[in-house]
């Protein structure tokens, strides 16, 4: 939601441009194209003809650009030619803290209806009637089984919104609405599929649902959804792209077939088992990322190199480092970031890690630091999640510890 994209001529604006919070909208000049365009594989898969609408699972490290890439996908002209796109974040419509597959399915139905109606389109009267009937049946049970006044006069849109609101509200209410919907799940799926069929026949396009931030729930809940409820969440007859937490994406319990998995890797900066090697392509890409946001003269070359190294090939981490370094340079009345500024950022990030790492983590980190092998996803799931361990991919998948931690682990 950055309004302006101007390459910074001074550190003050650079500081602002490296705000690490926002995924980029499609067509932002700040965007850099990764080598091999990793999202193209997903795009090609979506554009292919399928007998049954496929479901895809998309993962990557926190801050590696997942939301940015999904934004781009949703704005892609070829994708828009073929699909009516419904994109939303579960964080906006569900309580991510208490999420199960019922919420996911209901949110799909609700978003399909709401986004279609809000785009000024109409569904067939027969379908509206069926949906009204379903709405009444839910409301009736809801009134009977709970003392909650469920009469919702505002029509279907209000109904969907109010159920979503109840799903987001406090535990007791949420349980009831889930309890009502869960045994009637086939009804819900049926209605979702009717809406999909109606939209597809109206628009002469397929329906594509992109669900962002499904990698945000607590691990146990994500496991419940992606391990145990894979069948129900693949029931809707439209194309769906789910985001999946990285810590379960590589586990053996996650059984989605290889063809349906897409991973947005971190940018590789050195090769496996050789921290001193320098992957020129990776450094080039991260350099581009930086220079799309500020003029090259605002940072000394050795400071740039160090910033890229410490950013670990993760875009948000790199932005965070440059922002702290810019802040430090401004504080010291410099108009250029020097190595000392980046070192300050490095120290700050390292001490943040020290606060969240547990004693037993250090042994694991040390092992990974030494041989870059992934041993037991259970052991490192938490570390992947907090970015102290990062995964890279070329011919094989390997991992390394966050570069700010190398000093800490080696001196331990």
């Amino acid at each position, binding site marked *: 939601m950055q309004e302006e994209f101007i390459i910074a001529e001074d550190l003050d604006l650079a*500081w602002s441009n490296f*705000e690490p*919070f926002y995924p980029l909208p499609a067509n932002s000049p700040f965007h850099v194209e990764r080598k091999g365009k990793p999202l193209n594989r997903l795009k090609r898969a979506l554009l292919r003809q399928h007998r049954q609408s496929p479901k895809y699972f998309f993962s990557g490290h926190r801050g590696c650009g997942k939301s940015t890439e999904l934004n781009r996908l949703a704005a892609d002209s070829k994708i828009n030619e073929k699909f009516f796109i419904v994109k939303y974040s579960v964080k906006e419509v569900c309580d991510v803290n208490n999420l199960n597959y019922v919420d996911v399915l209901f949110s799909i139905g609700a978003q399909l209806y709401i986004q279609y109606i809000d785009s000024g389109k109409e569904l067939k009267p027969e379908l509206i009637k069926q949906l009204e009937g379903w709405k009444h049946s839910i409301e009736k049970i809801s009134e009977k089984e709970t003392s909650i006044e469920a009469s919702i006069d505002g029509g279907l849109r209000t109904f969907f919104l109010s159920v979503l609101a109840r799903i987001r509200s406090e535990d007791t209410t949420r349980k009831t609405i889930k309890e009502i919907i869960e045994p009637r799940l086939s009804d819900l799926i049926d209605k979702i599929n009717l809406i999909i069929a109606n939209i597809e026949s109206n628009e002469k396009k397929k329906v594509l649902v992109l669900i962002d931030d499904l990698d945000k729930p607590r691990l146990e809940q994500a496991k419940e959804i992606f391990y145990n409820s894979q069948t129900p969440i693949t029931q809707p007859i439209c194309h769906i792209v789910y985001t999946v937490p990285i810590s379960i994406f590589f586990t053996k319990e996650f059984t989605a077939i290889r063809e349906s998995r897409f991973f947005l890797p971190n940018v590789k900066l050195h090769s496996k088992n050789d921290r001193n090697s320098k992957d020129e392509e990776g450094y080039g890409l991260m350099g581009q990322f930086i220079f799309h946001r500020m003029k090259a003269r605002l940072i000394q070359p050795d400071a740039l190199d160090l910033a890229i190294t410490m950013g670990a090939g993760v875009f948000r981490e790199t932005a965070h480092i440059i922002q702290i370094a810019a*802040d430090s340079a401004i504080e010291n009345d410099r108009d250029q970031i020097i190595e000392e500024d980046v070192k300050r950022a490095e120290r700050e990030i390292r001490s943040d890690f020290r606060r969240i790492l547990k004693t037993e983590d250090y042994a694991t980190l040390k092992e990974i630091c030494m041989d870059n092998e992934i041993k037991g996803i259970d052991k490192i799931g938490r570390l992947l999640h907090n970015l102290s361990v990062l995964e890279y991919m070329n011919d094989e998948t390997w991992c390394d510890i966050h570069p700010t931690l190398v000093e800490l682990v080696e*001196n331990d």
Partner: protein
Amino acid sequence: MMRLGAIYILLLLSLLRMTEIIDPIEVRVSRLGNYLIRAHKYNKASILFALYLSEYVRADVEKEIRQLLNEQGLESLGVDAGEYKDLPSFFSSRSAEGTVFFVHSMEKGFPEALRYLNFKREEIIDHRVKAVFWVTDKELTRIGNEAPDFFAFRNRVIEFVEVPLAEERRPAVVEFALETEYRSLDEIKRSIKLKETLLSELSKDDEISGYLLSSLGILYDQIGSYKKAIEFHEQALVISKEIGDRRGEGNHLGNLGNAYSHLGQVEKAIEYYQKALVISKEIGDRRGEGADLGNLGNAYSHLGQVEKAIEYYEQALLIGKEIKDPRIINFCEENLKSIKS
């Protein structure tokens, strides 16, 4: 503003976290202030953490920053996290463009506050909220672990870990002096350095000196410098005797026992444990008694006197169960298991 630097001693606790360079407090105050002012200029959200030890320092620093902000036409609003657990909603309802929130009492809002922050972090960003979260080390660790998505959105963590020189500093210093649980060798060594510095600054009759001596003894023991450990425990013992602190005396005797035992002088260790046991019984310190008995069990086990060891472990276990102390219970049960197998 220079006033701040003058009345605090910087305990250099930051050293524990390897922040090698510690800028003067006024530099850090303006760092925080300027960050917020710049965020306002570019209409950005800011999630800043200010780490602190002493409430007095917190109040003073906050006052300074508020004044800085005020000069720039920004308003400040204090928020009690215990009162408003759903902080993102609170921010949204109050956020006018020029408001900076200072959040305190985080722990009172746990764990709900953590949930709200983690799952509504986008709301904070979307509303361009500028907030400074005052946190202790412990609170920040919990935020990092239990609200990781929110923590990943932090802009900066700025440390204000000095303590005031006046009488008010006492609780914070005492807490620091007693702290002996660190995670790594590195941290232990830094803590030793700081504690020795602080010790040299205090007068001998200070009760904090006693805490520091004892804690240094334990830390040296942890890193294998047993003779040094013994020196410190003996000094601590002298102070306890002087001020008639029987419980402290018992503790120091037990610690001396441990150090001698680690040195391999098990008979000497037993002597100290016995003396400690007498005091624990005398003052009715059940936990101390349990610990002393457990230590005796260990010592006899080292000497190969299995039956005697079992006897002591069992006595200790009985007390552990009686006072429901899981540390004693686990210690005894595990040792009994391994000694009998």
